[in-house]
């Protein structure tokens, strides 16, 4: 511990605990969507990417096809590839450690690693590992608690769980909407998804908004 910067440890652990606690919401959403406690916990252990997990469960809950659920979750996972691209040269790991690093390459571990830049490369590496493993630990623990809790409660609508999921999505995009352009992209996506809802099978309107991303991201602003 003495080799670690105190600030890096504090940043990593506070992110790990706060984000990990959201696992409760996922655990509840998984069970409310009809997944077993075991399946819900395996999602958190194996998928380990909050937005993708909520998306897969959400599409299933709203009556979408399995393929729509998987495709939406995978598309949300593409950003982790870009995080890996940034983290790989920093971490410089091979073999089994590289697989572990890949699994914990998420928004939070990348974010904390990048934010440690003023403290130097070593602090960036420590920030990545501490945040990644910390979120993994707490996210899985709280998923189990949320899943067991929801199973004990019963009817999801009676406890507002059916509204907690879209609220969680709203909470996930909110901090990303930094500019008017990004806010416009969000509003256009919502409008587009609602517009095509009556004509598309459930779940497909969500993936279809990839078109909005391609059109609006095609040329530089």
């Amino acid at each position, binding site marked *: 511990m003495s080799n670690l910067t105190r600030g890096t440890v504090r940043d990593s652990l506070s992110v790990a605990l706060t984000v990990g606690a*959201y696992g409760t919401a996922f655990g509840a959403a998984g069970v409310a969507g*009809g*997944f*077993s406690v075991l399946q819900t916990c395996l999602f958190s252990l194996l*998928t380990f*990417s909050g937005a993708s*997990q909520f998306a897969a469960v*959400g*599409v299933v809950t*709203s*009556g979408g096809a*399995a393929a729509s*659920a*998987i495709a939406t979750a*995978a*598309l*949300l*996972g*593409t*950003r*982790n*590839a*870009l995080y*890996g*691209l940034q*983290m*790989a040269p920093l971490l410089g790991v091979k073999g089994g450690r*590289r697989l572990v690093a*890949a*699994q914990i*390459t998420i928004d939070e571990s990348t974010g904390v690693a990048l934010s440690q830049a003023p403290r130097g490369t070593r602090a960036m590496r420590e920030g990545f590992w501490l945040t990644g493993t910390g979120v993994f630990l707490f996210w899985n623990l709280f998923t189990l608690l949320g899943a067991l809790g929801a199973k004990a409660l019963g009817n999801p*609508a*009676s406890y*507002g*769980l059916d*509204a*907690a*999921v*879209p*609220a*969680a999505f*709203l*909470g*996930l*995009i909110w901090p990303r909407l930094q500019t008017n352009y990004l806010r416009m992209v969000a509003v256009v*996506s*919502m409008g587009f*998804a*609602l517009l095509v809802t*009556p*004509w*598309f099978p*459930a779940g497909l*309107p*969500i993936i279809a*908004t*990839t078109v*909005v991303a391609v059109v609006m*991201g095609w040329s*530089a602003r």
Partner: protein
Amino acid sequence: MSTTTMWIVMGATSALCFAMKLLGHLVPQSWLANDRLQRINALIPICLLSALVVAEGLVLKTHIVLDHRLAGLGAALAALFAKAPFPVVVVSAAATSALVYHLHLG
């Protein structure tokens, strides 16, 4: 959806998401360094998550349905504008939605 299908959703989602993460660690940096790809990739989460807000909050199967969930979303929005932390956002949405749900049943 059958139990088998749900296992498939969980398994395939996990496999594909891990493949994405690993891809970033394995490919040479130049491969994904294309500007256009970066811009589009940065917008994808915003588009999908926005669509998920309305798909989960305002839609049942293929119909737009305005019910107790909308009240919950309104509460979430108010909490976000008030700069409330994430758990407060989710809990206030759940509480408001549950309240409206029970008032309607009552």
